[in-house]
């Protein structure tokens, strides 16, 4: 920086430093006042959560032990400012102990739709050959965690399902 570019010499350096400091301080304050709400706005989830509702998806008497059945149903899903009624499915398995599990229809690897392979007696994802057991646990392939499960309630012979929960445990 040449001398000509510097501030006129009659100015004391403390005064100049005060000006520069104030410019940066006000700039930082404004950036924070705009930036913090913006980050909260973009990253905090919307307040309205998925409404808790139980949907009757079918008759439990149709289920044979350890034979998964794909059941489809219609449910309301909150999508931003809209509530969408959409068709969805669950793979329902009645265990040997008569406990019922309902798995979300997407592979936990990259979200492809998997199906039940009768020959292998496993759930097979066609995208990258992830295999899941009838209990939802990963048997082979790149899937990082067991199949996601819906909350399940049985009322008489009616099977009710609630929210889909991500399985917590990882593969290891």
């Amino acid at each position, binding site marked *: 920086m040449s001398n000509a570019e510097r501030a006129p010499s009659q100015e004391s350096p403390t005064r100049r430093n005060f*000006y*520069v400091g104030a410019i940066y301080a006000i700039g930082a304050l404004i950036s924070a006042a705009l930036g913090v709400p913006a980050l909260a706005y973009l990253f905090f989830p919307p307040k309205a959560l998925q409404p808790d509702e139980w949907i009757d998806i079918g008759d439990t008497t149709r289920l044979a032990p350890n034979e998964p059945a794909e059941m489809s149903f219609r449910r309301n899903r909150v999508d931003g400012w809209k509530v969408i009624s959409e068709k969805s499915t669950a793979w329902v398995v009645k265990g040997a102990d008569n406990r019922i599990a309902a798995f979300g229809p997407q592979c936990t690897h990259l979200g492809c739709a998997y199906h039940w392979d009768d020959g292998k007696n496993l759930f097979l994802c066609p995208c990258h050959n992830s295999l899941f057991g009838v209990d939802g646990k990963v048997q082979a392939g790149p899937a990082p965690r067991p199949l996601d499960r819906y909350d399940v309630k049985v009322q008489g012979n009616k099977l009710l399902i609630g929210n889909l929960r991500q399985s917590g445990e990882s593969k290891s």
Partner: protein
Amino acid sequence: MRGRWDRLGIWLDHRTGIQTAVRNFLYEDIPASSGWHQVFGSVAIFLFMVQAFTGALLAFNYAPTPGDAYNSLRYILTELTGGRLIRGLHHWGASMMIVVVVLHMVQVFLYGAYKKPREATWIVGVVLLLVTLAYGLTGYLLPWDNRAYWGTVVATQIAAQAPVLGPYLARLLGGGGAVGVVTFARFYGLHVLLLPPATLLLMALHVYLVRKHGVAPAPGDELLPSKKFYPHQVFKDTVAVGVVFAVLFMMAVAVRVPLEQLADPTDTSYTPRPEWYFLFLFQTLKLFSGPLEVVGSVVLPGLAVLALILVPFIDRTRMVNVTRRFAAAAFVLLAAIGWGGLTAAAVLTTPKEAQTEAIDFSAPTDWMQLSPQEMAGVAYFRKENCTACHVVGEHGTAIGPDLTKTSIHKDAAWMIQHFKRPSAIRPGSSMPPIQLTDAQLNTLAAFLLKLNSNNATALDNAPEFASDGALVYLANHCGGCHLVNGVGMKVGPPLNGLAKRQSRSWVDDHFANPQKLVPDSIMPAYKLSPKDLENLTNYLFALPE
């Protein structure tokens, strides 16, 4: 460490020249007289950046089609963290932008800074003022509530009146005539796609011209040593920016920008009014009638803009000190008085806003959640003038007990007996008996059981159309088939969210002849008086979803 940063700076400067450019910009010489009066241009640029930033954030959660626009804005306001703040900043920022741009112009005008050779700078500035107003006009429609819709109807009709160009303008702004999806798309396109780059270009040109000719000096400056733009003037600009931002932020936090009901093109009771900075134009229009209307709507504003553009060519005198520019000061004073007078007249003659317009529909308040019976109780509470002896919310005299205390609440049967003969139930009570039927007393009891110290003010503020509408609702036994706020029967459709499903004219026609609109409906026709019909429809339209 410092040496490393300097080396990086030098490396970058060799390749891009960025450091030299910034330095040339910052260490510009400015006249000795420059100071606080010249901060407005920088503040305007700052506010434009705030508008661009908050506008982009809003656009991330906004669906630019009628109907969805309203719902998505409501989603921003009620469900997203900081959404109300960001909308507040954008809304009030727009108003402040107008204020600051006008102040900037007034300063330049008073000081005569538009004179040779700065005519082009001035003209670009006038165009920037028009662009700022265009943002206000197009942005006004985007919430798609009643205010937005009806304000834009008036604006497009004014544009359509323009001589020769009128019909073309109307077609350009929305396919001719009605304000609908096409107008909406065009306004949105203008607001977010066309105007911002135009503003950036014009701003760049404006600043380039300011730099080319230098900041306008005052007479006598040539004898004094010049100053540097940085940090002297930048400091003053930044302080001004800080003050303006602090005011803007406080307004965004403290002053709630309401969201009215969803736009309803069939609502004939609505009185449109433009944003405050357009009110003077609105009022000018009223001074002319019949074939002369076009004078007020198009000719006068057009001439005013032309006069503004021609200012540097009309006043070609030599630069003199601001304290001696009496004519300019007088002109600014006259313009301010004219603008102020027209705006004041417009505010004073605006009919008292209908009750439905004063309500913020972005979130349901307590009174919206009362059952029709409880709401009718509010009507009887007022009719019987209970606040003569009881305090509720901000009204009343504390002669009798405080009814908002839940500890004194008894069951409905006790209350009804008490209403009929107060002194028999509570010896020594000086409360007069209430002359109402059992059914009416029942609604009063229902309302009082709902009352507590938290909701007292909100319930006290329940608009009259809602309590009167609830009376009509009960008198016609609507609850025998319909559900409101979870109370009633499910024979017919629930009435919450009716405003989203049907227009006002549809509801009016439907009351008169349900089968005409819904062939297999079992609802009987209702012949309601116009007043009852209005109250009932307003009430139903105010119900939360």
